[in-house]
C-alpha cells in the first residue's frame, strides 16, 4: 500500500531483501510499523 512516507523514504520491497542488504552493506535494519489510515 502506498502512503506519504514513500515520497521520502526508499522502502525495501521485502523483509528478506532488506535483511540481505543489511548484511551486504553493514547497516542496521529500520522497520516502520504502520497501517493504512
Amino acid at each position, binding site marked *: *500500500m502506498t502512503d506519504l512516507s514513500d515520497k521520502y*523514504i526508499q522502502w525495501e520491497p521485502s*523483509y528478506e531483501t532488506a535483511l540481505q542488504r*543489511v548484511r551486504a552493506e553493514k547497516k*542496521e535494519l529500520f522497520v516502520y510499523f*504502520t*497501517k493504512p489510515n
Partner: protein
Amino acid sequence: MDTVTYSHPQVSQYIANHFIPYKADMAERDAWPHFRANHVIWTPSVGFADRNGSMHYVAPGYSPPPEFLATLKIGRARCLMAWTRNAEAAKLLEEAAPEDNAMAAEALFWLSTAYFFERRDSTRMYEVWEELVRRYPDSPWAKRTYPKPG
C-alpha cells in the same frame, strides 16, 4: 509521521545513510509476523534490528523530527551494543545526548551503559548519571540511576 517526520530532510537523509528501511504495513499479510515476533501492538512504531533480524529497540508512537533523529541514533546504538560495538554506540549517543529534547534523558542513560560496557569501568557511567540527574531530575531515566557509592 509521514507528513512531518519522514519529510524532514535530516530524517530521510539519516535513514538513507545508516539504515536499510523496511515498511511493515498491517494491510499486507506478509508483514503480520513481524508485528507478532517483535510484540508491536501500536502503529506507528519503529524498530531497529541487526544483521540477524533481531530487534533491539522499538519506539512506539509518533515523534517530531528532533526527537525522531535522537530515536534513530539510540536505536542504532542499541543494535551496535548488542554486538559489543560499544565505542561506536557511545559516539552516536554523544551526538544525541546534548540536544535538549524529550529523548535526551534516554540518550544519556544509554550513553552511560555504552561507556560502562566499553571499558567495564563505572567512572564515566556515574559521571553521565550525575549529568542525567542534574539535567532531567524528574525523568523516568533519572529514576533508574543510583548515586555513586561512598
